[in-house]
């Protein structure tokens, strides 16, 4: 044991390079030797070899739950990992307010909500409400930000109208329900509607967030940025300034 540098690594069970992992799944097969063999086959196809079926339990009469342990031979290479690192400075509320004041000479307008049928507002509220999250106050707390929180289950057209009415600089949307890719569908619908309603010059910045998003999908979903698990209000505020506030030192992107 001993943490590698960033060279290629293997999973670690109890010895460097042993490649050990734990896997569980259900197969739609009654429990018998064939089913156990099928479970092994799946593990092998996933690159586990040797793989051991250490637990098999029938569920009803047509299904079997398996726990498999074994070694994967894949190497993972951290140096090839693409991550969306924070490409903007973290600012304090004070700094955010100052930047907006001097850079925009008006309050920056944020419209937010949960679109579609999603009613999980705790996430967006954590970002927007004064109460905030993880000890940081939410955007409503920032003097120079005007926050319009539409709450849950906002229809996309309604969101667009409010964005127009409020002259929103940024639109913040939360999506928590992911079953059947609801979050992706709703996000695409939302971004399409905004691109339809605005030309690129005037379109508000589109930001979505939720615990199960992949940050790298932003372009694909047609939004400017995705925030995920554990985001704090400060990060969001800093990003908004970075993208929206013209700054003498830095030409706004």
């Amino acid at each position, binding site marked *: 044991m001993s943490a590698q540098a960033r060279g290629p690594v293997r999973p670690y069970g109890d010895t460097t390079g042993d490649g050990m992992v734990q896997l569980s799944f259900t197969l739609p097969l009654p429990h018998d030797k064939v089913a156990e063999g099928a479970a092994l086959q799946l593990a092998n196809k996933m690159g586990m070899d040797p793989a051991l079926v250490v637990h098999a*339990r029938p569920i*009803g009469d047509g299904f079997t739950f398996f726990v498999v342990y074994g070694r994967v031979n894949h190497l993972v290479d951290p140096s090839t990992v693409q991550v969306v690192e924070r490409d903007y400075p973290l600012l304090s509320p004070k700094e955010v307010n100052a930047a907006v004041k001097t850079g925009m000479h008006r309050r920056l307008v944020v419209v937010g909500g949960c679109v579609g*049928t999603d*009613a999980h507002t705790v996430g967006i509220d954590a970002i927007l409400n004064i109460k905030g999250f993880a000890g940081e106050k939410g955007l409503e707390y920032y003097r120079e930000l005007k926050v319009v929180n539409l709450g849950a289950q906002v229809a996309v057209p309604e969101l667009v109208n409010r964005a127009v009415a409020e002259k929103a600089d940024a639109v913040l949307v939360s999506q928590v329900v992911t*079953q059947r890719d609801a979050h992706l569908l709703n996000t695409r619908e939302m971004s399409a509607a905004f691109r339809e309603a605005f030309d690129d010059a005037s379109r508000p910045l589109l930001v979505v967030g939720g615990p199960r998003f992949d940050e790298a999908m932003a372009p694909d979903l047609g939004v400017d940025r995705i925030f995920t698990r554990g985001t704090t209000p400060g990060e969001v505020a800093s990003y908004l300034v970075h993208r929206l506030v013209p700054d003498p030192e830095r030409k706004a992107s």
Partner: protein
Amino acid sequence: MSRPQLELDRDTVKQARSLARKVGRPIVRLAKQHTTVSVERATLRMAGLAGADPEGTPWVNRLVDVVRADTGLEQGVALPVWDALVRGEAEDLITLAQKASAGSVTMRTPTGRDAQRARSLAKRQVGAGIRTIDRRRREREQMVRRIGDAPRQPWIYLIVATGDIYEDIPQAQAAARAGADVIAVIRSTGQSLLDYVPEGATREGFAGTYATQENFRLMRAALDETSKELGRYVRLTNYASGLCMPEIATLAGLERLDMMLNDSMYGILFRDINPIRTFVDQRFSRQVHARAGIIINTGEDNYLTTADAVDAAHTVTTSQLLNEYFAKEAGLEDWQLGLGHAFEIDPDLPESFRLELAHAMLARALFPKAPLKWMPPTRHMTGDVFRGYLLDGFFNLAGALTGQGILLVGMMTEAVVTPWLSDRDLALQNVRYVMNAAGNLHEDFRPAPDGFIATRAARVLGESVELMERILDHEKGMLDAIADGTFGLMKRPADGGRGLDGVMRKAPDYYNPASEILEAAK
């Protein structure tokens, strides 16, 4: 050997109940003064009007809309609708609905003898529907007697939520075979805000399956089969909640569902449904549940997903007291009150488990005859499914120690996905272990009268009393309290929220045969 009971201060308990009455009474008055589109549609459903037009809009909606356009709803749909039938505009409700929506019938509000005739025909046809509900209730009672009931308390309550009724059914049956006493089919995310009840068997819900009469029927039939196979009656649960609460309550009665989630404030707080709309729909749906012998499950657990489970513990107690008041006023009996509470304290908080025990025992002592609904950890569940499985085990233990009536089985994947087949199986195994290995531990569990647990329980009850006193200080009492975020930290003004336009103040000549019959029953 009996379960440990907390000795609560008699006077404080008395005081708490009378405060709940004071807080609730104006709301009941309000509810009696109004009707809603959904109450009226529910009435038509009782009379047997089902089905939908080619676009899928239910005939009850079409017909009520026409009546509303022609005469308004202040006097209820019954008079204009059955007047039209009496007038021979159509031979039955469905034909009337079709003609009316085609514009070939105009409605009027009958008076004098016409009104008299309309009323009696309406009462006959609606009464028939209510008799069906009565029949269903007797059916349930018989099956429980003949087939057998759940072997012990707490009843094991499991959720299915595939979005596809045809996936739900075998999963529900598998769950029942694996030990579930109660199956809940969760609704699709959007449904609570639909101002109509979808029709037919459905396969495309998000994170849940649409509540439709046909889905109810299919699932109940499948579970009847399984019940016979297992020799115990497996109960079915759904949600009488959202904009169509009264209609869904009616359909539940007609299709012999056994429990319904039905909370006095959930729709207001968590779906931003107008408070008045909610309270009116609420009262009607509870009258139907009372008649149908359905056990309601209230939603206090939800508060603790947005507010802290320790700081807000007294809001749960308060809501339970109010739910009890509203429920009894609507005719429900103690055995029908599945009052909700949940294991939602931050597990990293020192003594968190004993705090949970204190809260659970408070509910148990405050509502000794009610089958409390004990909800598992959700907001503090994470992607660490191992830790989650352990937490659920301690939730189960708390249930066993404090004598809960209905135990909603927690899923280790709570923070990840809607339950998988294997999650449910693992969860039941967890419950079985705890009940079997430690189910009688309550015999050795004796919190000291002045100990940590008793002290905490007393404190929460005290805070609840204070809260209700504060509510009464508001000018408009309860409505203002809801408006200023007293519950679940959500602010819901009485004139805001969805569905307000579906609320009408009753006219003096308002007539609703269903209400008449149901009120009479009390």
